[in-house]
C-alpha cells in the first residue's frame, strides 16, 4: 500500500519570505505521479504542481518548485516570495502511473503573516 506523510501540521512564514513544506511517501512502484494541492479557506482544492517520477528535473510553476528525491522518497514544496494568498492547507498526494487511486497526506496548514 502507498502512504504519504506530511510531518508539519502547521507552518507560518513572513510575507515575501521562502518556505518549504515536507512530504515523504512509501511505495514499491517505480512509475508514479506526485502532486501538491492547495486548499484555501474558500475550500476548493486546486493543483499547485505535479511531478512525474521518471523525470529527474524538478517541476517548477512560477513561485512554486519541488525538490524531488526519488531514492529518499521525498517530495518537498518550496514557495518563494510568499504572498498572503498562499495561506491555505497544502496536501501532498501520490498516484501510481496506471492507477486511478490518489493517496493524500494529512495536510500542512500554512499561514502567511503580513
Amino acid at each position, binding site marked *: 500500500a502507498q502512504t504519504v506523510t506530511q510531518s508539519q501540521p502547521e507552518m507560518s512564514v513572513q510575507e515575501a519570505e521562502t518556505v518549504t513544506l515536507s512530504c515523504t511517501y512509501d511505495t514499491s512502484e517505480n512509475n508514479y*505521479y506526485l*502532486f501538491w*494541492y492547495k486548499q484555501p479557506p*474558500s*475550500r*476548493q*482544492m*486546486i*493543483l499547485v504542481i*505535479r511531478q512525474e517520477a521518471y523525470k529527474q528535473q524538478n517541476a517548477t510553476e512560477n513561485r512554486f518548485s519541488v525538490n524531488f528525491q526519488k531514492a529518499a522518497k521525498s517530495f518537498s514544496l518550496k514557495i518563494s516570495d510568499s504572498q498572503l494568498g498562499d495561506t491555505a*492547507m497544502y*496536501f501532498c*498526494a501520490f*498516484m501510481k*502511473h*496506471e492507477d*486511478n*487511486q*490518489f493517496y*493524500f*497526506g*494529512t*495536510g500542512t*496548514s500554512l499561514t502567511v503573516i503580513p
Partner: protein
Amino acid sequence: EADIYQTPRYLVIGTGKKITLECSQTMGHDKMYWYQQDPGMELHLIHYSYGVNSTEKGDLSSESTVSRIRTEHFPLTLESARPSHTSQYLCASSAPPGTGARKLFFGSGTQLSVL
C-alpha cells in the same frame, strides 16, 4: 480551471432526512470520486467510480450510497442523515491514463450540517 460542479454549496438539515449531494463534470472524465473531509483535516475516500454503472466503496466506511448512470453525473445519497454525517464532501474527477492530464479536478465541495 475545473469544470466540475457540486450543489448545494451549503446544506443544513434535520436528523432523519434523505439528502442527495449533486456532482457533475463536463470534461468527459470516466473516473469520479467522493471524499469526506472534516475542517482542516485529511481527505478520506468514501466512494469512487471508474465509469457508467461502476461504483466502489472507498477506504472510509460510509453510510452513503452513490450511482453512476451517466458519465457526467455522480450523486451521493444519504437515506437518513445523522449528526455524525456533518462534514465537508468533495467530489473529484480524473482523466484516463494516456491523456497526459493525470490529476484530480475538484468541485467546490458541499458543507453538510445535520442538526
